[in-house]
């Protein structure tokens, strides 16, 4: 951990975080869901103002969804991975679109792919998938092979060479 990142980590002590060092310039901060917004605000005020990525991990064995915010600082090149776990059966969280406007689209994507609801973000129209009728596809219990077998069942096709030859000659209409 670099010195400037150490100072930032110290300023987060009040939120009772679990700190993990992944790399020299990459730190993972795990906090409880009610403190995430405050942690993000503190980090943004400390120069970690670029939201690199917002994503979600489905931990199906723990019955939890892990929300991940990756913040990057253009000043010292440090990365903070802020993570929190929410209930998988009732995934609800708060929007961060006031902090980063582009988060609106990330939240729309997470709603589509993981089924997470973001309070305060009204725009939850589908972004990538059209006419989707199954459970959110990036959840671990969604099986794409089963889905495509059900949606596009195999059709029997028997080749009739004589008939095709007749169509080819123009004797019958195919």
């Amino acid at each position: 951990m670099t010195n400037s990142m150490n100072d930032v980590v110290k300023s987060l002590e009040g939120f009772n975080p679990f700190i993990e060092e992944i790399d020299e310039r990459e730190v993972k901060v795990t906090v409880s869901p009610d403190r995430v917004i405050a942690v993000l605000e503190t980090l943004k005020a400390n120069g970690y103002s670029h939201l690199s990525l917002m994503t979600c991990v489905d931990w199906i064995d723990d019955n939890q969804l892990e929300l991940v915010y990756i913040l990057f600082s253009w000043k010292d090149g440090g990365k903070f991975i802020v993570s929190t776990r929410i209930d998988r059966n009732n995934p609800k969280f708060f929007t961060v679109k006031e902090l980063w406007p582009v988060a609106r689209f990330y939240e729309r994507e997470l709603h589509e792919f993981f089924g997470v609801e973001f309070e305060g973000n009204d725009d939850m129209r589908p972004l990538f998938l059209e006419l989707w009728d199954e459970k959110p596809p990036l959840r671990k219990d969604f099986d794409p092979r089963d889905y495509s077998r059900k949606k596009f069942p195999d059709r029997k096709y028997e080749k009739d060479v004589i008939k095709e030859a007749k169509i080819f000659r123009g004797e019958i209409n195919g």
Partner: protein
Amino acid sequence: MGEVKLFFGPNHPGMHGNFSVHMYVEGDIVKRARPLPGFLHRGFEKLMERRFWYSNIALIPRICVPEPDINEACYAMGVEKIAKLDVPERAQWIRMIVLELARIANHLMAVGGVGGPIGLYTASYWGTADRDRILDIFEALTGARVYHMYIVIGGVRKNLTPKIEDMIWKTLDYIESRLPDYENLIFKNRILHSRLKGRLLLTREQALEMGVTGVGLRATGVEYDVRKVDPYLFYDKVDFEVPTATDGDAFSRVYLKFKEISQSIKIIRQALEKMPQGDKVNVAVSKGSALRRIVPKGMAYAHIESARGEYGFFVVSDGKNKPYRVAVRGASYPQGLYGIEKYLPGTRIEDVPLWLATMDVCAPEIDR
């Protein structure tokens, strides 16, 4: 005159890839714009969870078509970070050479891409023709022209032979000799100036608020480059500059890409000189056949400066032989979705393809 809805989609010749924008126009002026991606959604993130760590190398270059090497590099760097793997030094220099060659190829294509919507077709022909010289190097080095699958976990697939090194030196000399011609015929051309100068302005505050990276940000006067701020590979051991401009318009964005070509040439030349000799260019993550190799538990985010901005892979491993989750940060996500909605209203219809071309909106990496 009333408001008319105009669907500007992949079937339009002026569109930049498989992307669509729903525009509400009054006369020539865009009143509202709504981005609608999804034409290229292939579900890479789900597919990656169902394949082995090493098989994914064959899949991920397809996420970004014009510059596929960044995907392999990000993915490999993320996995190496989790596994705490020491990559041979020579392999890291070779990766740098490949990434910079890919950057030159992409910038040449981008210069050509701007030529299409403004009607300066010389740029398109020249850019595509010179890019092919770089693809020749890739073909000799990796066996493929576009999707190389060359950077693997733990190093690179094959060593760089002296013959190919010689080829790289010659090609760089050729491209460098072409740059004054580009400057004189394309960047001093009246068509380019009258169509791009002062169009699609973006201030520094707007760019930072939007979260734009790459040339879109550097054209507003900020010297933010991941290669300098958070150096990966050996970018801290080579000497290069990050060109910036202060205008923040479409012209300066294209011109910055052109200037970056000569910086990339500089980096590759230094890398070829500083690179240690040797045969060892890759190491294995764990024992056994490549399909059974496992990566220890953990998560990491690896990002690099692609030709379009910050490009990153977030990799999660649960200690098995397949990734648990991989998330991709496409470099053009902010300008392609939020940027279109917020900054296109007020511009003219013919400037919309220019936004997509100069801000490098790449549909495959938004959809994934």
